[in-house]
């Protein structure tokens, strides 16, 4: 008999492959391992299927389907039916777990089997949804609820599936309310367990959401008119017409009054309530407390105390986040002055001269929100080089950084020095470095760099000089020696490769890494396979360095390692507090590099069957 996994984690997605990568990564990184991972895709056309196949081949995804559905809740119900775990959690595309210990923590709460589930808090854009009440009032108006932090027994969810009518956007809150109404025991875990993706989901469509919640309110609360429902929604959203809400709490319908009272108390801790006067807040809260106190079925003191304590906890968490931001600002300011001194010294020692040699190098890099405050250091170091690049391009995804006003002033200032900042509709993560502007490589050598390295002043010159000498080779300032297995038939595990080596001549056995800066000769990136999303997602979704190396192997293009590529300390990474969100943990620690390498080699076997022999010859070179 096969035992059931403790959790089923279900991700629902549609045409969102690149966001799904982020979600899946946070699932793979969980320290608790007794779970199955299920992906339900709505027949996407963006390469999602290739990505799902990649994960399945690695044994990271247990079940995956890709077929048309009628909407997100239909897909979630489908995921529910596929699930076999004791408890189910829906972590949809672009959502992530708050940290790698989430499942372990929830398991600790649920392992005694006394509860039907657990509900944690959620985060979105630095705000926290702090659930505090275990009551069916959830269906009143999304009381600070994050479905990504909800874990419920599978059988219970099957009894109360999502309302999958096409116009629905609040079926998750409605479901939770019904679960509580049916007597489910789902304790609150007062801690963020998930971060919702920044991309606008169905609930971001304000009008559609209003229609959906209005239907919930009029269907669930007898005698509530459309206008009543609109008033409740408007109050919940923007605290309009509070006196009318007081009126609702004084109605004879105690069931409705209690739910409105709970909604009012929750709203009093939301940003929208800032505009209310102290008197009005007092009136609303006083009335709500009276309503709850008069309900003999309800432990009002316990509920109100729980609200107060949860909000104190939420406030403390916001304070911690604010402190972390201040600490980062201080670290950046300190680093800024160190950098300014370093650059001044370079000028005073005449390492840098005003009339620097111009080159036709195009430089491209990408970044993401956690690095925005520090990426200007990397770019500044690329502007302060002994030879001058033709262009520097920074690519950001609009789904992560919506526009220029989200950028720190120090970064925007660099536009005056020639930096070009672009916003792609969707981020391809680390692949943004060349996916959007590979065509520039048709006319110029193209240099890919990382966003967390202070480049030494000769980094570009070093690449450029080597390019003059070996115009057809890839040039890397930091290269690894690719190890082969004893038989020489395939590659050895990534951890056995020799780090940071330099050779006298180009070799196919060298793999350049982005951290040092990599120069690609004209025409390399414009080969169609290099930017083929389907190929990338099915072979190396998390490793652009490896993919580019495999593309080079496919065409027999060798790599030359400059003399900077030895085990020196030439490149200066930022302080740990400034290096949030690194990919290294996923790629190296989990052995994903090896998985991706093996996957890529299967593709390489098809396009260049003799690659292993060529690599062995590279050893001789």
């Amino acid at each position: 008999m096969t035992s059931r996994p403790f959790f089923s984690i279900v991700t629902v997605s549609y045409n969102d492959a690149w966001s799904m990568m982020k979600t899946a990564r946070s699932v793979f990184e969980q320290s608790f391992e007794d779970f199955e991972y299920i992906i339900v895709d709505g027949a996407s056309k963006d390469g999602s299927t290739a990505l799902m196949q990649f994960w399945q081949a690695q044994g990271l995804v247990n079940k995956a389907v890709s077929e048309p559905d009628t909407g997100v809740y239909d897909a979630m119900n489908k995921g529910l039916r596929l699930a076999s775990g004791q408890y189910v959690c829906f972590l949809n595309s672009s959502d992530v777990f708050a940290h790698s210990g989430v499942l372990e923590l929830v398991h600790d709460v649920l392992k005694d089997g006394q509860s039907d589930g657990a509900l944690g808090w959620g985060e979105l854009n630095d705000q926290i949804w702090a659930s505090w009440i275990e009551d069916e009032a959830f269906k009143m108006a999304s009381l600070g609820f994050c479905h990504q932090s909800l874990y419920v027994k599978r059988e219970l969810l099957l009894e109360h599936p999502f309302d999958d009518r096409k116009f629905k956007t609040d079926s998750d809150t409605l479901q939770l309310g019904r679960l509580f109404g049916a007597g489910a025991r789902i304790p609150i875990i007062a801690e963020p367990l998930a971060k919702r993706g920044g991309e606008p989901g169905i609930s971001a469509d304000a009008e559609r959401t209003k229609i959906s919640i209005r239907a919930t309110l009029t269907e669930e609360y007898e005698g509530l008119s459309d206008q009543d429902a609109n008033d409740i929604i408007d109050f919940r959203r923007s605290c309009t017409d509070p006196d009318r809400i007081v009126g609702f709490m004084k109605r004879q319908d105690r069931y409705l009054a209690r739910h409105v009272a709970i909604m009012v108390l929750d709203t009093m801790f939301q940003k929208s309530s800032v505009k209310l006067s102290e008197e009005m807040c007092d009136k609303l809260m006083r009335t709500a407390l009276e309503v709850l106190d008069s309900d003999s079925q309800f432990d009002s003191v316990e509920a109100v105390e729980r609200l107060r304590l949860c909000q104190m906890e939420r406030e403390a968490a916001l304070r911690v986040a604010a402190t972390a931001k201040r600490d980062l600002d201080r670290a950046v300011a300190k680093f800024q002055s160190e950098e300014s001194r370093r650059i001044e010294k370079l000028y005073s020692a005449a390492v840098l001269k005003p009339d620097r040699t111009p080159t036709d190098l195009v430089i491209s890099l990408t970044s993401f929100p956690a690095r925005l405050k520090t990426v200007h250091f990397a770019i500044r170091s690329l502007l302060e080089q002994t030879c001058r690049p033709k262009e520097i391009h920074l690519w950001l995804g609009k789904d992560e950084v919506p526009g220029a006003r989200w950028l720190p002033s120090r970064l925007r200032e660099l536009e005056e020095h020639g930096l070009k900042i672009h916003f792609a509709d969707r981020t391809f993560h680390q692949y943004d470095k060349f996916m959007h502007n590979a065509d520039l490589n048709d006319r110029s050598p193209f240099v890919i760099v990382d966003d967390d390295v202070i480049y030494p002043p000769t980094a570009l010159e070093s690449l450029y000089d080597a390019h003059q000498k070996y115009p057809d080779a890839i040039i890397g300032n930091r290269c690894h020696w690719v190890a082969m297995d004893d038989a020489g038939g395939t590659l050895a595990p990534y951890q056995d490769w020799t780090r940071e080596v330099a050779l006298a001549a180009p070799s196919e056995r060298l793999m350049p890494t982005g951290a040092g800066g990599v120069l690609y000769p004209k025409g390399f990136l414009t080969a169609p396979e290099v930017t083929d999303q389907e190929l990338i997602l099915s072979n190396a979704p998390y490793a652009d360095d490896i993919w580019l190396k495999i593309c080079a192997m496919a065409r027999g293009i060798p790599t030359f390692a400059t003399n900077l590529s030895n085990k020196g300390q030439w490149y200066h990474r930022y302080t740990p507090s400034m290096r949030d969100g690194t990919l290294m943990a996923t790629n190296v620690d989990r052995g994903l590099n090896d998985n991706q390498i093996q996957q890529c080699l299967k593709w390489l076997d098809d396009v260049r069957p003799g690659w292993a022999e060529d690599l062995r010859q590279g050893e001789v070179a």
Partner: protein
Amino acid sequence: MASKSELIIPFDDFFQADRKPAEFANMLGDCFARRGSLGVECRKDAFRVSLRASSNLGSGVKVAGNWRGPDFESTDFSHAGTKLFLPFLFEISEINLSHAQIFTLGHSYRSLADFFMRNLLLSLCRDEALDIDGSGQEIVDDGVVRNFQRQYFYIFKTLFPEPVLEKRHARESIDFMQANAYVPVMDFQNPLLRLGAEQLRATCLSRSGQKSQEQLLKGLHQARQKMMAHFSK
């Protein structure tokens, strides 16, 4: 030669082992020789470490400071499990230890902050009696008091290597330790800590149950005011 009976230690020196004044060793020796007591007090500009010639043996460890939350009283810390949580719920600006409550002598690689917090923690582990003065302490430099609290956390974390404390920054962990006295946000492996947290929560809940509507409303207003400060920035 008799040692000084008082040392004024700049804030930075208090937290650094290599800046521990040499006179402190003499003071400590005198404390034992005279069966006295040692105290530390966070003042406006510096810490004051003082030696008292005699100690009233049998009396508890004395701490003074300010409560971080409104819900606890001295009498709520009745056994070691609850006492260990005290420094997370109470910002300590003064500690007074009798010679019998000094278990570790302050190695050269440990700071004065470490000396006092380590001895306090060991006293709490031994379930020594506590004398808590939380009445109207002048608020000194908040950052310094919090650093002192953080020192306790680091020692606590070494003594009680709970997995839940591994995943967070110190400040965040301290906030969670405090929150845990109200709502169950952490599950400890150590039974003493589990029991202490449960007892504090039970105390908190029973006290809440006695609250009037006006008290509840007042509590909500206070919590809301703090929260709104984040939104009006």
